[in-house]
């Protein structure tokens, strides 16, 4: 399906979704559980002696990027890896706290590959591709093996075997963890594997280097244009394939749990060069973050949702109840998740927990100085298990909370509130993780593939590592096998054009004599996105946002203040370039949210909800992936649909009651 740029927005959603020839997902034939194995058996291989003749450019060094770069280098490919941080060890995967899922069934509690697959499909509200999700569940078990062998210090039981815990939305204990720093330890494992390859000369590492454009000619990726953030030097790199592992776009909201540097420039530049952007409206608002304290707030800090295993969420029944939490008797408290969802209680999926928190705060029952939070209370767990156990499980999180708020969560309940955390949308990829641009592969959070409309807890780490360690090394080889003997050169006119456009763009950002800081624009954009395309959306609000965002973007280009030059370190220039892309992405996100006239997972359209406030899908009209094609400056993007066919599961209304 496709519609012209002049079609009114609302009518862009068709009543039936025929397969779009531009979106061939290349899902292998055969039974679901055998697809990946059969596919792998038939992928083309590159002879060991020929692997060194291929150069692969990997952008990003988080779990997906570092694991891909290391694994590709181990195979013998020449790899160039780029990250904007000063070391590949710092990518934002490092901040993931809770854990990583795997269908090991070590607990004998009924887990299986199918069950992990099913939970992920259901958690994603039936908006992901079955075959990808099943592959993810299959590979989950290998990831744990790999990480343990690397020396990742997962939590263990006294018998010396790996410990597991249950995690948001799961009724089995399949989550592996390393205190509250699982992401850090997994990333260090991948970083160490990558470092080994750097030491061996198999990977050339470019830290403090940012992608500014993807070079594409005739629908095929030839390389990239990057800027050295230390010297300001701009250079072009050619590769037989380009891998984007550059993470998500939650910072479109300005205040999010992402690192300050996390940005969407790589995927956005790729989008403008022909890679379709899928489901941009699927964003995840994490239910357990520390509420904002003031207008100087620069980011929000997540408190792992593993805390919901032992903490109980409540607000006072009476909005006027201003007593300190300890003095509010149980009868005057509303444990609203336990009340509304007796089966899952405090462990309902993230989107449900986030919406309910917003609802009680909107009712005026919020707690804390700004009445913008809900309590997450450990008093019962401490009484039941003892302080030692709680300290063992969450010690570092409690410390972090106390550092930020000055309050001791062992004595007084934590205050939490939802914050943008993860983006399920991203560049469209086929089963081989290749985008609509040949030779441009997208892995980890940067792609759209596995989480549908909502990601389950402890699944992001799983997906990043599955893509990097176990999918891309196979599928990329299959692609490269068809390109043996092709010479690389940055002399192609496409490189010169991309370079010239990059220079012009930087010059434009620096040329203005504007008055407003980059951050002031970013805050304003973030407020618009939060207000109109945050936890809950509606058509009127989205239409308003679609008028306000371009106006703010025009003002940005007229009135932004970027001092200094492009030579050498210029952090304001970096931020301005990223924000310019966030403006365009924000617009596409709202456009997609307006087009998707249903609720699904993290995308709640207020027009479509059950009487209990649950997301109400419209499978007749919207069981498809919405992938947007850039049609040029000033032109409306074109929507393409990939129909989602479900063979192994039957679509059901999610219910966590």
């Amino acid at each position, binding site marked *: 399906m496709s519609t012209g740029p002049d079609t009114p927005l609302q009518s862009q959603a068709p009543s039936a979704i025929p397969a779009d020839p531009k979106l061939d997902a290349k899902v292998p034939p055969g039974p679901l559980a055998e697809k990946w194995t059969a596919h792998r058996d038939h992928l083309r291989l590159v002879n060991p002696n020929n692997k060194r003749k291929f150069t692969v450019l990997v952008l990003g060094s988080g779990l997906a990027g570092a*694991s891909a770069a290391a*694994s590709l280098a*181990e195979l013998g490919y020449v790899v160039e890896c780029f990250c904007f*941080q*000063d*070391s*590949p*060890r*710092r990518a934002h995967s*490092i*901040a993931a706290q809770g854990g990583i899922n795997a269908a*090991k069934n*070590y607990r004998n509690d009924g887990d299986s590959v199918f069950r992990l697959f099913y939970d992920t499909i259901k958690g994603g509200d039936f908006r992901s591709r079955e075959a990808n999700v099943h592959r993810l569940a299959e590979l989950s078990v*290998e990831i*744990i*093996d*790999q990480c*343990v*062998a*690397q*020396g990742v*210090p*997962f939590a*263990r039981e006294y*018998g*010396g075997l*790996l410990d597991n815990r249950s995690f948001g939305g799961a009724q089995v204990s399949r989550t592996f963890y390393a*205190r509250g720093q699982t992401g*850090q*330890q997994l990333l*260090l494992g991948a*970083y*160490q*594997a990558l*470092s*080994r390859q*750097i*030491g*061996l000369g198999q990977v050339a590492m470019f*830290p403090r280097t940012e992608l500014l454009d993807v070079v594409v000619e005739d629908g095929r990726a030839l390389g990239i244009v990057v800027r050295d953030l230390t010297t300001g030097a701009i250079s072009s790199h050619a590769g037989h394939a380009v891998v984007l592992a550059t993470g998500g776009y939650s910072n479109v909201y300005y205040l999010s749990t992402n*690192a*300050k540097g996390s940005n969407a420039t790589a995927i956005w530049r790729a989008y403008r060069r022909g890679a379709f952007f899928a489901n941009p409206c699927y964003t995840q608002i994490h239910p357990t973050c520390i509420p904002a304290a*003031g207008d*100087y*707030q*620069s980011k929000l800090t*997540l408190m792992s949702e593993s805390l919901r295993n032992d903490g109980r969420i409540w607000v006072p029944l009476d909005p006027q109840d201003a007593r300190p939490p300890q003095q509010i008797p149980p009868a005057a408290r509303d444990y609203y998740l336990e009340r509304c969802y007796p089966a899952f209680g405090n462990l309902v999926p993230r989107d449900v927990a986030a919406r309910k928190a917003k609802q009680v705060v909107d009712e005026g029952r919020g707690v804390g100085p700004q009445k913008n939070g809900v309590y997450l209370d450990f008093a019962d767990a401490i009484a039941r298990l003892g302080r030692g156990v709680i300290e063992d499980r969450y010690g570092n999180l409690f410390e*972090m909370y106390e*550092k*930020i708020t*000055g309050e001791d969560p062992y004595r007084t309940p934590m205050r939490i509130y939802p914050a943008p955390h993860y983006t399920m949308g991203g560049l469209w990829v086929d089963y081989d993780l290749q985008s609509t641009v040949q030779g441009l592969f997208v892995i980890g959070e940067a792609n759209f593939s596995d989480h549908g409309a909502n990601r389950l807890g402890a699944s992001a780490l799983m997906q990043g590592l599955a893509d990097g*360690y*176990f999918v891309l090394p196979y599928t990329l080889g299959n692609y490269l096998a068809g390109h043996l003997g092709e010479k690389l050169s940055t002399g192609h006119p496409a490189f010169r054009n991309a370079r010239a456009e990059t220079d012009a763009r930087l010059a434009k950002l620096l040329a203005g004599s504007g008055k407003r*800081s980059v951050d002031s624009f970013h805050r304003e954009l973030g407020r618009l996105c939060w207000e109109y395309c945050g936890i809950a959306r509606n058509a009127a609000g989205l239409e308003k946002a679609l008028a306000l965002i371009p106006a703010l973007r025009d003002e940005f280009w007229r009135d932004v203040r970027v*001092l*200094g030059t492009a030579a*050498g*370190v210029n*952090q*304001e220039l970096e931020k301005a370039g990223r924000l310019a892309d966030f403006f365009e992405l924000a617009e596409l996100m709202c456009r997609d949210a307006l087009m998707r006239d249903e609720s699904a997972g993290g995308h709640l359209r207020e027009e479509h909800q059950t009487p209990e406030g649950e997301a109400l899908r419209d499978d007749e009209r919207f069981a498809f992936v919405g992938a947007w094609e850039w049609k040029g400056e000033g032109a409306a993007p074109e929507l393409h649909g990939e129909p989602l066919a479900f063979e192994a599961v039957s679509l059901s209304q999610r219910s966590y009651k």
Partner: protein
Amino acid sequence: MDLTLHVWRQAGPGEPGRMQAYEVKGVNEHSSFLEMLDVLNQQLGERGEEPIAFDHDCREGICGSCGFLINGVAHGPLPGTTVCQLHMRHFRHGDALRLEPWRAKAFPVIRDLMVDRGAFDRVVQAGGFVSVATGSAPEANLIPVPKPLADRAFDAAACIGCGACVAQCPNGAAQLFTAAKVSHLGLLPQGQPERTARAVAMVEAMEGQGFGACSNYAECEAVCPKEISIDFIARMNRDYLKAKLKGVEKVPLGD
């Protein structure tokens, strides 16, 4: 609260630098130290002055990007805390604070409070890993690891590579950073085959990167935001000495 900041300003690597004084007014006690600098940078921009460059990313104390000296103390006065997690409630109205970049030969200044910590990466590249290629791992529960051992390994693995240990050391030594990685992997069964070679390779790489020698000042431990113990340095030294005394040759790593 109002503060006076004396900040190291340096335009680029090898350029001369100097301390520059700034008055910051109306600082909110609940803001973080870096948010206070954001506010100052905003004000500098309004005056047409270039903002102060400093490294930061996660602002959650885990990525290890941030760090500078506050009145001569790496990450400032609060123990076990990175500067991004240091909040202004720990300072008082009228305080004068000196902000300087990490001072160490192995960490050249890039600009203002930013330094180049690439030397840390090169130490890890020399041997800070287990040589296990993707796909070759055995079943995860095949080798039990006693919980106390796993916990001890984790204590060492908690290092965020921020460089405070080097910055605080009068010798600019990187023993705590290196020992943390040597110990994390050396304590686990998975790290045993390369334990000796790793210790030798990493210690020698460390010495080759321009870090100073360790003379047991223990300043590193005092400022480490992850409170990593200097016991690990003794452990690394034992591994290294044993390798040297027994004549265990350095074996090539990673092949």
